[in-house]
């Protein structure tokens, strides 16, 4: 049963050249990698490209993985940096993804996004729609902390932020998300 095999075992098998071990790692983490990429690049097609590129980079550098961090942390770091590189290529003017430079984009009342979300009687859909309005950095940190349940230390490893910055960013991201939810999707979350 592949679910019982640990990441470490799969990595050793992959390093030994076993293709099924690579495939097992993809199957295990494809949804996590894709979700993080989607939250950052905001487009399914681009997210597929980014997630695939991230997996290929991970496999290429797998011999350098020393196991000091969890494999998932290492992989998400690659997904995160691949997403950032993708966004920078899309918009070369972007130097950083600081909150101040990328204010929260709240959909207009009656916009297709808002009206579509208002029709959904689903808490998760409303939250996901709200996250889509966050900046890439905010969406990534919310996803990593709450959805993937990574600690702040692990988030620091993934994003290269300091502990204080990571905590501040998480707090701000949460406040922005709350503001979006309250202003646009309140009915779904009641």
């Amino acid at each position, binding site marked *: 049963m592949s679910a019982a095999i640990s990441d470490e075992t799969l990595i050793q098998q992959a390093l030994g050249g076993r293709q099924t071990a690579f495939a097992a790692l*993809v199957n295990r983490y494809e*949804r996590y990698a*894709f979700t993080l990429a989607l939250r950052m690049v905001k487009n399914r097609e681009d997210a597929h490209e980014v997630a*695939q590129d991230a997996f*290929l980079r991970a496999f290429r550098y797998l011999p350098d993985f020393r196991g000091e961090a969890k494999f998932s942390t290492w992989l998400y770091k690659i997904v995160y940096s691949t997403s950032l590189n993708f966004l920078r290529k899309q918009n070369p003017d972007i130097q950083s993804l600081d909150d101040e430079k990328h204010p929260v984009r709240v959909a207009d009342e009656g916009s297709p996004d808002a009206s579509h979300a208002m029709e959904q009687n689903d808490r998760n859909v409303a*939250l996901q729609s709200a996250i889509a309005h966050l900046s890439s950095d905010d969406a990534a940190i919310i996803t990593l902390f709450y959805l993937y349940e990574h600690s702040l230390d692990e988030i620091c490893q993934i994003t290269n932020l300091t502990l204080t910055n990571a905590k501040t960013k998480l707090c701000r991201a*949460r406040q922005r998300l709350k503001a979006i939810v309250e202003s646009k999707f309140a009915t779904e979350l009641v």
Partner: protein
Amino acid sequence: MENNFLLTDDILWDYADGFLARDEKLRVDTYLRQHPEQQARLDAIMSEKRAFTAMPLEKPNTGFAQNVMAAWAAEQTPSKAAAPVKTKGHDWILWAISVAFGLMIVVPFMLAPSAAPSELSLQIPEEYIPQFQVPTFDWASFFSSALLRNTVLLTMAFMGLKLLDKYLQVRNMRLSGH
């Protein structure tokens, strides 16, 4: 509990997220016991947090994993071609070339003695032939024998073909991009 303690939403979120130090957490617990009406705020935050953590993961399109593996296999292919692998399936070509080269070199030498003029053969008068036999090895006939000549030629031909084999391997590696 001091009167100036203000239980903000940020503190409650830090409490919910587990960021508070032990003494800070105790302070919040004490405050909530003394002000049970504030418990609803913490409950709301905990509910919001549960909603965050309960969000489903996005699902990539069907065949995503297969696409990744196909791209990985494609990336691996040139590396395998670059490895010095013996192409056993094509050995017969090299052997055929070896035999052809060998025959081209050896056959003229084998035919040459029969075509040589007979007056070149040396006739020695009998009186000059010694009557006693000294056990000697006939080095001259050994070095002029067809066996040695052919062996040397075949060895040279074989070494030449090994060099050709090596050259073709290197050329194949360059053509594959490495």
